[in-house]
């Protein structure tokens, strides 16, 4: 500001206050610039969120639709049960290869009935329009209902992933011409069959219930095992980390004396909160799998690792909740003869419960999305069997939602990218639900003292 006084001393001020001088203009311009930069930063943050969500939704929403072929299949006894005595063991000997001819016949009749000309396709190409999963569907049906052999049954069969992709806009005639797995003629036939009502897109329930499928049949891949595995792990995390976290917080907040030992625990907890998640995966692999000998890929190991990871979050939230309960409550309880323990467990803890639960839910939400440690403990394995019900099922191999996403992105077929984005949407819906519950809980029970 010194140059203002010196300039006014040398030359009398000619401008009025209403007219900005050069320096004021410069300062105001710099103010406006700074403000604009800030606005841009906020815009970048918001745009990043919008871009992220749009990209995931644009890629993933189509996975909630799936193309099915509605065909009548004649369950030919000559092929399925040559002896004719409906002996289940003999029927079970017919592998899925034995069911492929049935599908061929079914497709030929269906196209003839719909008046669609499929003469451009070889019979092999015609069968290839249906998913490789379809023979297994038929076989499972026959094994469950052997009395239906010889009858004609209407099935909704999965259509090949490329044709499904064509209806969703992912595959085009041009790309099909270069693709070994599909030809433009097949797509043309699919178009005609769709117009005739044989093929149709419906809501993809199987996406939520079916297990994972192999590389060549993305259309059959579902999240069933992954969702179940994630639920199991969340159960373990909830059952272990909530009591442990609350107990540890009560000790640290209410009983711990001020000494070096307490300091050590506190430093430990705050450092654990900052340890990279992958290091917890190494811990799980080295201790829980190699030393303790728990099975790989099992929800129990994942649950234990995630418990250790969420513990700091829960402890921090619980301590804050305990701290916010006013001392008058404690004093009143102590005054009528309660012990310290009774005052805390009977009076302070119930009042702190909403805050603790909110923290627990947020910790669970974090654990649900955690991927890296689960990769190390073998949750990437290809699992097609549903784990059994708890508690034995906790030791069966399973997948987890975020790991399933990673798994699918490592596959060659672009149809799996769509599935992965769809799985992300499912994961995000779970997270939104959990966070909403946490917010509602906080709103409902929040108390100002």
């Amino acid at each position, binding site marked *: 500001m010194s140059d203002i006084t010196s300039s006014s001393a040398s030359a009398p001020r000619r401008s009025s206050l209403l007219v900005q001088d050069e320096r004021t203009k410069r300062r105001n311009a710099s103010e406006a610039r700074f403000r604009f930069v800030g606005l841009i930063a906020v815009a970048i943050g918001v745009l990043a969120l919008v871009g992220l969500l749009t990209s995931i939704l644009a890629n993933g929403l189509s996975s909630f639709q799936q193309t099915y072929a509605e065909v009548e299949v004649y369950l030919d006894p000559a092929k399925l049960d040559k002896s004719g005595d409906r002996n289940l063991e003999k029927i079970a000997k017919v592998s899925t290869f034995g069911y492929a001819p049935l599908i061929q016949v079914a497709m030929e009749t269906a196209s003839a009935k719909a008046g669609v000309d499929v003469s451009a396709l070889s019979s092999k190409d015609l069968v290839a329009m249906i998913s490789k999963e379809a023979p297994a569907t038929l076989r499972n049906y026959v094994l469950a209902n052997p009395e239906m052999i010889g009858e004609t049954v209407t099935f909704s069969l999965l259509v090949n992933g490329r044709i499904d992709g064509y209806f969703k806009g992912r595959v085009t005639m041009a790309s099909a011409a270069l693709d070994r797995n599909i030809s433009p003629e097949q797509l043309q036939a699919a178009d005609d069959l769709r117009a005739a009502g044989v093929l149709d897109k419906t809501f993809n329930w199987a996406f939520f219930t079916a297990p994972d499928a192999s590389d060549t049949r993305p259309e059959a891949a579902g999240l069933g095992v992954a969702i179940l595995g994630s639920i199991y792990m969340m159960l373990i995390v909830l059952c272990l980390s909530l009591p442990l*976290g609350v*107990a540890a917080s009560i*000790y640290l907040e209410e009983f711990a004396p001020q000494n070096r030992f307490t300091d050590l625990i506190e430093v430990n907890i705050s450092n*654990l909160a900052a340890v990279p998640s992958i290091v917890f995966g190494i811990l799980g*692999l*080295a201790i829980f799998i190699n030393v303790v000998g728990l099975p790989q890929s099992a929800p129990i190991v994942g649950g234990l690792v995630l418990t250790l990871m969420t513990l700091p979050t829960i402890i921090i939230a619980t301590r804050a909740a305990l701290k916010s309960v006013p001392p008058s409550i404690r004093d009143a309880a102590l005054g009528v003869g309660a012990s310290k*323990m009774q005052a805390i467990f009977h009076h302070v803890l119930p009042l702190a419960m909403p805050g603790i639960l909110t923290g627990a839910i947020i910790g669970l939400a974090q654990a649900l999305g955690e991927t890296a440690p689960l990769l190390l403990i*073998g949750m990437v394995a290809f699992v097609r069997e549903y784990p059994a019900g708890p508690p034995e099922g906790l030791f069966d191999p399973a997948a987890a939602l975020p790991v399933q996403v990673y798994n699918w992105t490592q596959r060659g077929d672009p149809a799996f990218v769509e599935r992965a984005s769809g799985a992300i949407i499912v994961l995000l819906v779970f997270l939104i639900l959990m966070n909403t519950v946490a917010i509602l809980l906080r709103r409902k029970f929040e108390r100002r003292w």
Partner: protein
Amino acid sequence: MSGVTLAMAVLLFVVTLLRITPDLRARNTSETFVLSLLIGASLVAILTTVGIVGSLLFETLNFFKMYPAKDFFFSTVWNPQFRGGSDLGILPLLWGTLYVSLLALLVAVPTGLMIAIYLAEYAGKGLRSFAKPAIEVLAGIPTIVYGLFALITVGPFLRDYIASPLGLGSSSSSVLTAGLVMGIMLIPFVSSLSDDIINAVPQAMRDGSYGLGATKSETIKQVILPAALPGVVGAVLLAASRAIGETMIVVMGAGAAAKLGLNPFEAMTTVTVKIVSQLTGDTEFASPETLVAFALGLTLFVITLGLNVIALHVVRKYREQYE
């Protein structure tokens, strides 16, 4: 089985009955027991740290028995072979890690800091009530989502519109892809930390500056930021430690080729990526190729822990300054 249970119950019932006297302080006994449970629960944190450090150290020592430590720390070649004779130098991995983290911080720190400043000092109520939660949502999104974003959107975009036309590279996974996306992930982290720090600067300092005729931006640049600098440095260190330990974004966005290079459009790899790739699949615990992951993990643990300890120390010092 049930007979044993019943016998135990009867036995303990009798024992308890005999112990009841007017002098018995049963409440104290049971509360001592509960207290020991509480202490046990809080020991889990220590046990976890011991478990982490113990398992990392133990396997790392095993690794150094099979592979010379000098080569691990100073070799510039990373080339694991399944049949043995691998080169396991950490330098290319550390370089990739630092490069990606640096780019991420270059994105996240200015943006996050400006967001915090704008929302704290300039934004109207309407914008704040909308922008603040939106940016907090970014913090709650799991990293796998960012990884997928890098893989299917940012990577191909950078390759098709920037790298390929300029002839800088043809790979969709690159240092820049991972750095950009990780930067986005860190924005809410930096902005919420900076927000706390800016709010901790006493109002009197602002008022003094305004009283001297400074504009808002001059006050921020010349009074608030210098005063908040130690805290901001702490926040940047915390963000750096996050970036270095981040796994999924680099696994899906940065690539797997261990390289020492400067071109940000090239795929490079990081410490975390190699931990994942060495430990997934068949893990045979006798080979240096698997055990190297523990040495990498220990390095990662030491670096992030060091950064955190320094950062927390700086932030605490800064808080004390104004209390």
